[in-house]
C-alpha cells in the first residue's frame, strides 16, 4: 500500500490553497495600486520620501525601531489610535505603496509613529527629537526607550563652533568640556529627517466618503457620555 503520492498531493494543495488566497490573490487585487494625482495640489499622493529621509529610514531599520513602534493607525472605534491622536484617519493600503519596505510593526512598547511628523513638526520637532534621541527621559520621564547617544558625536571645536552643535538643547549634565561641542552624526540627522517626514494627512477620494459605525459594545455600555460620540468620523 503506497499512499505516498496521495499524501504528497494533499500536502502540496494545502499550502497552495493559502498561497493562492493570501499571496497571489492580493498581489493581483491590489499589488499594482497607483498613487493618486491631485490636480488641486498638483502632485501625487502618497508622496515619495525626500532623499535624506529615505536614508533615515535605513537607520530606522538597522536600529530595529519596528520592534517597539508600529506605523499603522487603526480605524476610529477600534482601539484607541485615533483618540490618542496618532492620526487623523485610519491607515489605508495606498499609504504604503511607495515604500520599498513596509514597516507596519506589531508592537507598541512605544507609541505609533505613522504620523509622528505631524505631532513633532518643523524646527521645534527637530529639537524635540534631538533631545529625545540623546536621552528619552529628557522629554518623556521614565521612558524605557534606549538612549541613542551613539548617534551623536562629541568633537573638538576647530575654529568657529559649528552651527549644527546641539548641546544647547541638552541638560547641564550632558554639557561637553570647554572647547568641545556635540553634533548629530549623519545617521542621526537622517533618522530625524525620516521621523519628521512621517505623516499621512492626505485623504484619498475613495476614503472621503467612508463612514464608521460605532461598535455595538459602546452602545451597550450605555449612559457614559463618551459613548455618545457622533456616528460617523471624518
Amino acid at each position, binding site marked *: *500500500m503506497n*499512499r505516498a503520492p496521495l*499524501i*504528497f498531493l*494533499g*500536502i*502540496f494543495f*494545502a*499550502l497552495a*490553497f*493559502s*498561497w493562492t*488566497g*493570501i*499571496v497571489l490573490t*492580493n*498581489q493581483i487585487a*491590489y*499589488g*499594482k*495600486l497607483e498613487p493618486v494625482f491631485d490636480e488641486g495640489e498638483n502632485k501625487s499622493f502618497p508622496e515619495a520620501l525626500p532623499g535624506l529621509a529615505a536614508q533615515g529610514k535605513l537607520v530606522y*531599520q*538597522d*536600529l*530595529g*525601531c*519596528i*520592534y*517597539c513602534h508600529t506605523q*499603522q493607525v*487603526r*480605524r476610529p472605534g*477600534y*482601539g*484607541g489610535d485615533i483618540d*490618542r491622536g496618532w492620526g487623523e484617519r485610519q*491607515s*489605508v*493600503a495606498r*499609504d*504604503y*505603496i511607495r515604500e*520599498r*519596505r*513596509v*514597516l*507596519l*510593526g*506589531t*508592537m*507598541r*512598547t512605544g507609541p505609533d509613529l505613522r504620523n509622528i511628523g505631524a505631532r513633532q513638526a518643523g524646527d521645534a520637532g527637530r529639537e524635540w527629537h534631538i533631545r529625545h534621541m540623546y536621552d528619552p527621559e529628557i522629554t518623556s520621564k*521614565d*521612558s*524605557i*526607550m*534606549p*538612549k*541613542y547617544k*551613539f548617534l551623536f558625536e562629541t568633537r573638538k571645536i576647530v575654529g568657529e563652533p559649528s552651527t549644527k552643535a546641539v548641546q544647547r538643547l541638552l541638560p547641564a549634565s550632558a554639557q561637553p568640556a570647554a572647547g568641545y561641542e556635540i553634533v548629530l552624526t549623519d545617521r542621526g540627522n537622517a533618522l530625524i529627517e525620516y521621523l519628521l517626514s512621517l505623516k499621512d494627512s492626505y485623504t484619498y477620494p475613495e476614503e472621503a466618503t467612508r463612514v464608521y459605525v460605532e461598535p455595538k459594545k459602546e452602545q451597550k455600555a450605555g449612559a457614559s457620555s463618551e459613548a455618545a460620540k457622533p456616528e460617523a468620523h471624518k
Partner: protein
Amino acid sequence: MASASSLAASVSPATSSDTVTRAELSEIDASTKAPAMYFLCSAILWLIIGTAFALISSFKMHKPELLGDIEWLTFGRARTAHLNAVIYGWSVNASFAVAMWLMARLARSVVRHSGILMLAGAFWNVGVTVGMYGILAGDATSIEWLEMPPYATPMLFIAYALIGAWAVITFRFGKSEHIYVSQWYILAALFWFPWLYSVAQIMLIFSPARGTVQALVNWWFAHNVLGLWFTPIGLAAVYYFLPKVLGKPIHSYYLSVLGFWSLAIFYNWAGVHHLIGGPVPAWVITAGIAASFMMVVPVVVTAINHHLTMIGSFQALKYSPTLRFIVFGAVNYTLSSLLGSLMADRGVSEVVHFTHAVVGHAHHGLYAFFSMVMFGSIYYILPRILHKEWPSARLISVHFWTCAIGITIYVIVTSIGGTKQGLEMNDASIPFMDVVRHTIVWLKLRSYAGVLITVGHVAFAINFAWMIFKPRADNTAPTLFAHPNPDLEISAR
C-alpha cells in the same frame, strides 16, 4: 474497532520493534551519529547564545541604561539577535537532528549519504552566523522573522535544499511499508518550509511586492514557520516518543490522520490574524480569523489522542525525563493553540494586539511546546547514538523544573501585563507614559522568569557536554528520575 486498533498497532513505533530487530535499530541509530551530533552541538551552542541575547533584551526593557552605549547591543538589535539565534540557530538545528533521526528510524533505513547532511549543516550554521553578524552590525532587514540580511540567506537556502534532497532519498529507500503519522508531519514540514521561505525572500527582499501585500506575505510566512515547520516537527516527535516511552500504541490512528489534515488545511491561513485592524483587505483578515478558530479542530483532536494514549500511564512521568518534557510540551501545544485561536478574535485582538501578550504567546508556542518537546527528544536520542547514559539525573531535573516553572511564569506575567497594557492603551484618557510605567513590574517578573530558564539551559548544556566527554561505562541502565516500580510498563527513559 478491532481492525482499527490492529492497524494502529502495526504502524505504531511502540510495537514496531517486534518486527524490527534491536540490532537493526541500533545500526540505524549508529548511522545517524555524525550528523545528529553535529546538529545537536550546534543547536545547544545557539541555545546558549540566544539565551544570553534574551536576557540582555529582557533586562533592557526595564533597565534601558544597561549596555546602553553599545550600538551593537541596542535593544532593536539584541532582541532581533535573540529571535534569530533561537529560531534559526537552536530550533531549526534541533529540528534537523530530531527529524533526521525519526526519519531514519521510521523509514527503517540507515542514513545514506550523511555527507550531504554534514554539508547542509555547515551551510546552515555558517549562514546563521553571518546573519547574526549582519543583524548586530546593523544590516537587519526589519522584516519580522526574516531579519537576516540578503547576503546570509542564500546559504540557508542551499542548506535547506540539501536536507530536502536527503529526506527524499531516505524516504525512497525506506523499508517500512506503512507511513507513520510522524513521517507525514516531517515530510510535509520539509516540503512546506522552502516554499514559504523562497516566496517570502523573493516578495519581500529581492523583488519587494508593493505596499501592504508585503505585510500579508510577511505574516503568511512568519506564522507558517511556526505552524508548518515547528508545529509539525514538534508533533512528529510527540507522536513518536509518547507511545515509544509508554510501550503502547497511539490511541487512535484515525484521529491522528484527522489531526494532520485539519492542521494542514487550516493553519496556513491563520497568520493574517497578526494584521487585524491593519491596512489590508478586510476579507483576508476575516478568513485568517476563521482559520484561526478552525485550528481548534486539529488541536482538540490531537489533544484527545495524546491524552487517551497517556491515560493509565501518568505514573511514568515520575521516572522518564523524555516523557516529562514531551507531556509538558504536548499540554502546552493544546493550551497555546487554544489561546492563539482566542487571541485571533477581533474583540480580543483589539486589546492584546501590539502588546507584550503577543510576545508571551510566541514563547508559549515556541518554548513551552516546541523547545520542551525538543529537549525531551534529545534526552531520548542522545543515549542511543552515543551508547552512554546521561551523567546526571539531578541536572535533568533542574533543567525540567527551572524551564517548566520559568516559562509558566513568563507566559502568565506577559499575558496579564500585556492585557492590562492593551486595555490601558485603548483608553485615551490614560497618558501613554502611564501605560509604559504600569508594564514595568510585569517586565521585571518576565526577566526573573528568564533567569530561571537560563539556569535550566546551563544545566542542560553542562549535562550534554559532560555526557559527550565522559568515558563509556559498563553500566547501561537508563538515567531516570527515580527507580520505577518493576510492575510498571515503561520501555525506555
